[in-house]
């Protein structure tokens, strides 16, 4: 076991975490940044392994150099697994157990995709939208493949045009929200100039992307690998289309597990004040885990959190205007891409809900909370620890999340044993 001490500990290396680390280091604090991915940038700024000159890759490289120059210690492939106290965390990296002791902690653990169960969603070839994007950036080849992009949110068009640049044939972009709501969202972009240029350039680059609003996939067919997708809409008309890959994501959910382990108050995301302080003293939170709003919100919240964690409250407060504008955009996102009720009725009795343990819908639909479901059906007992099925059941059945239990990610037994011995040794 290794002990490390820092003034500010940032958990998460996406836009919010990078901004927080830079701001705190700029204010003269010693800073350590952890991320469980092999590379910095999080999901939004994931670099393309086949394109060193991609804008995201350059952005992250620039930030990495600035962090190094400011003396920030960056630890990749490192995961927080348990907490002794809100500012004393246990982390795991390559079978090494780390005890991290900080004065202030900034949580920036981001979001994951909401994957909703429907018949066939477990077939090889069915991915999340951000999921397929991430795999393609990591080298998955889509050249000449027929792809259906489905679900909801601005990510759909962004990913569809990125996949097309990699040679994919985009068969359909299915946006579950209605044409009217989509138009309202498009008009709203005029109020956020940088978002506007982003949106416009997307549409221009996208050219004639085959976008269909008010439609969604209701079944994925294959033998067992994906071959066809059945699509439906509000009028109940259906059609079946041939495709090689289906990217399907129904928006993002904040990753609040660590925040909840530290007893931070959470509603739709981690609850924070205007200085990004959580309900727990010395614990700050920034970015998507406080509510979904995109990278501009993440950057300004990260900067505020980093400054506030470093004690620079006046500079942190000076960013209040940008934060307000970013939050207004987040509210429009939530309103215009709200999920329609029909998506709750895609599951059939034998649709798998828990992918790890193969628990079907018929076993879980009558349960009233996540803990009870888990204890009686094994739903959420697998290695993903409910990361996929719990948000799905929260949407389908209104279940609140189960209490997070350490270790927050699966670790080898040896690490668990070492953690246990160390904790008991400390207690004595």
């Amino acid at each position: 076991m290794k002990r490390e001490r820092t003034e500010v500990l940032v958990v998460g290396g996406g836009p919010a975490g990078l901004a927080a680390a830079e701001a705190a280091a700029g204010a003269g604090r010693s800073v350590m940044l952890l991320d469980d991915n092999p590379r910095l940038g999080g999901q939004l700024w994931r670099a393309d392994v086949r394109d060193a000159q991609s804008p995201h890759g350059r952005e992250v490289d620039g930030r990495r150099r600035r962090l190094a120059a400011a003396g920030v210690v960056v630890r990749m492939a490192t995961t927080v697994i348990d907490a002794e106290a809100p500012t004393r965390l246990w982390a795991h990296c390559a079978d090494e157990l780390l005890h991290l002791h900080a004065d202030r902690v900034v949580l920036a653990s981001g979001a994951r995709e909401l994957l909703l169960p429907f018949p066939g969603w477990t077939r090889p070839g069915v991915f999340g939208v951000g999921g397929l994007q991430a795999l393609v950036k990591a080298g998955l080849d889509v050249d000449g493949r027929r792809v259906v992009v489905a679900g909801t949110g601005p990510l759909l068009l962004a990913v569809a045009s990125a996949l097309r640049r990699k040679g994919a044939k985009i068969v359909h972009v299915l946006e579950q929200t209605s044409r009217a709501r989509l138009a309202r969202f498009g008009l709203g972009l005029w109020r956020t100039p940088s978002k506007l240029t982003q949106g416009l350039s997307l549409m221009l680059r996208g050219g004639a992307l085959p976008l269909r609003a008010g439609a969604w996939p209701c079944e994925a067919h294959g033998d067992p690998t994906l071959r066809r997708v059945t699509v439906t809409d509000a009028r109940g008309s259906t059609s079946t289309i041939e495709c090689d890959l289906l990217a399907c994501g129904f928006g993002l959910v904040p990753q609040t597990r660590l925040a909840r382990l530290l007893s931070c108050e959470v509603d739709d995301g981690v609850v924070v004040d205007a200085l990004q302080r959580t309900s727990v003293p010395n614990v700050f939170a920034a970015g998507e885990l406080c509510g979904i709003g995109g990278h501009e919100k993440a950057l300004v919240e990260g900067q505020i959190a980093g400054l506030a964690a470093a004690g620079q409250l006046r500079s942190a407060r000076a960013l209040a205007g940008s934060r307000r504008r970013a939050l207004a955009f987040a509210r429009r996102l939530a309103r215009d891409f709200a999920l329609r009720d029909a998506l709750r009725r895609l599951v059939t009795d034998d649709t798998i809900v828990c992918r790890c343990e193969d628990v079907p819908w018929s076993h879980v639909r009558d349960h009233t909370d996540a803990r009870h479901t888990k204890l009686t059906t094994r739903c959420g007992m697998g290695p993903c620890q409910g990361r996929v099925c719990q948000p799905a059941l929260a949407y389908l059945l209104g279940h609140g999340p189960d209490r997070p239990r350490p270790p927050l990610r699966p670790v080898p037994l040896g690490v668990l044993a070492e953690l246990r011995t160390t904790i008991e040794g400390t207690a004595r």
Partner: protein
Amino acid sequence: MPDHICIRVDGVEHRVGAGTSVAAALWNAGVRAFRVSPSGAPRAPACGMGTCFECRVTIDGRPDTLSCQTPCREGMEVRTAHEA
């Protein structure tokens, strides 16, 4: 850094682009059963970012390693459910 590296997937050698994740390399090599679910269904990556655990394989003898979070390294030995 070389442009390409070699890894072995279920005993067969594959040339992959440097920096490629194991998950992407396996999919490109035609692997569709990264793991097999308790009821016997083949599973492949879904989330692409270390959340769903569907992409887990044995890498250099280490079981249940997330292939989407692991970059390929020269000489790496990967075993999928196909071989298990």
